[in-house]
């Protein structure tokens, strides 16, 4: 799915990311660990196609539209939670009869039923993250890139995310986090 060799990214003369080699198979889940400023988020942004490396090769099988990146601090569009959940589905041209069951499933899994009509501007940090994760998962992308997805989530919600990912075994997932994931996640990791 992903093959990276000799990756370097410099900004204003400073090297902010250095990764000699990285391989991820289809359906595999991987944790990128590292302290603040180690380049975890930048690596995910490169994989998402949002940043361009200065050097090296990045081969990703998934088309740009089949990769979804969830920011460390996710952004929700104006409007209510329902319109945010359906945004990507509409952008991908997925019809209502196919998208509605996906939304219903995500709403139940991330306990969003009471938030559906709420304005995105009135949500708490944890609620924003749950909506952003649900919005990404309903798309069933080939590659899902999650930047510190467990921040703002309590134990039960973190477990719900793991269960949601387990229910979609074909999706490759790369997670950036400064800390280890709970033991139940059981994913290989790499330190930057």
């Amino acid at each position: 799915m992903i093959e990276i060799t000799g990756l370097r990214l410099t900004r204003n003369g400073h090297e902010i990311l250095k990764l000699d080699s990285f391989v991820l198979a289809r359906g595999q889940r991987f944790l990128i660990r590292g302290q603040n400023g180690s380049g975890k988020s930048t690596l995910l942004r490169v994989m998402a196609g949002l940043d361009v490396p200065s050097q090296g090769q990045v081969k990703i099988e998934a088309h740009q539209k089949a990769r979804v990146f969830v920011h460390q601090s996710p952004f929700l569009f104006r409007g209510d939670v329902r319109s945010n959940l359906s945004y990507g589905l509409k952008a991908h041209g997925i019809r209502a009869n196919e998208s509605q069951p996906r939304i219903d499933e995500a709403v139940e899994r991330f306990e969003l039923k009471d938030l559906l009509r709420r304005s995105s501007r009135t949500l708490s940090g944890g609620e924003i993250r749950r909506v952003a994760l649900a919005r990404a998962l309903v798309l069933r992308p080939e590659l899902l890139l999650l930047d510190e997805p467990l921040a703002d989530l309590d134990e039960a919600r973190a477990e719900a995310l793991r269960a949601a990912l387990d229910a979609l075994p074909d999706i490759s997932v790369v997670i950036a986090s400064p800390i280890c994931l709970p033991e139940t996640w059981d994913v290989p990791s790499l330190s930057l």
Partner: protein
Amino acid sequence: MFADGIREAFRLLIDQDPVVMNAAGRTLFVSGSAVFLAAMVGIPLGTFVATKRFVGRRLLILLGRTGMAFPTAFIGILGYSFFARGGVLGGLELIYTPWAIILGEFLLALPITFSLTQGAVSALDPRASETARTLGAGKLRHALTLLSEARTGILLGVLTALARCMTELGVAVMVGGNIAGRTRTLAGSIVLESSRGEYSRGLAMGFLLLLLSLGVTSILVLLSFERDREAKS
């Protein structure tokens, strides 16, 4: 005289004086049309300049900002030189018609709709654009999403342009000719009535113009509050 002006204003409004209503209607028509055209050009152009990098971009932004401060008399004389007989566009016979005023006010409004759109879209959180892209938005949906996110600032630009066009005098008089029943706007009427010594009537027209401007400005203020609230959230 001031009190007379207020009394006269109320009388003209209550009686729906045809001259005043005609000038008010024309003011709204020419200014509304000019701003509509300026929004149709300025909003897409502002969004394009805010989201793309190209040679001459900064110059375009500088020209837009400078254009916001164009003296209306300068646009008026520029328009006159184009539309007058013997001018480059003289053959179109637009001089002293409402269309000439619309085109002149379009030039006044365009830098405002362009610059305020460019500013509003540039000031958006970069995650808005990235999130739209990563969720699969194509070019059109991406642009529409940014416009939706920046809509308060953009609407503020449109209303600012409308307020400027409604109250301007230079274009209306120079290319419109201030002709009764054809090209006379409220601002032109104020000048004419004052020059004829009809100060009360001039003041009445002024109060009416003030009333229209107050309506637009009230919406501007409400939108500013909304934008401030968004910025804090």
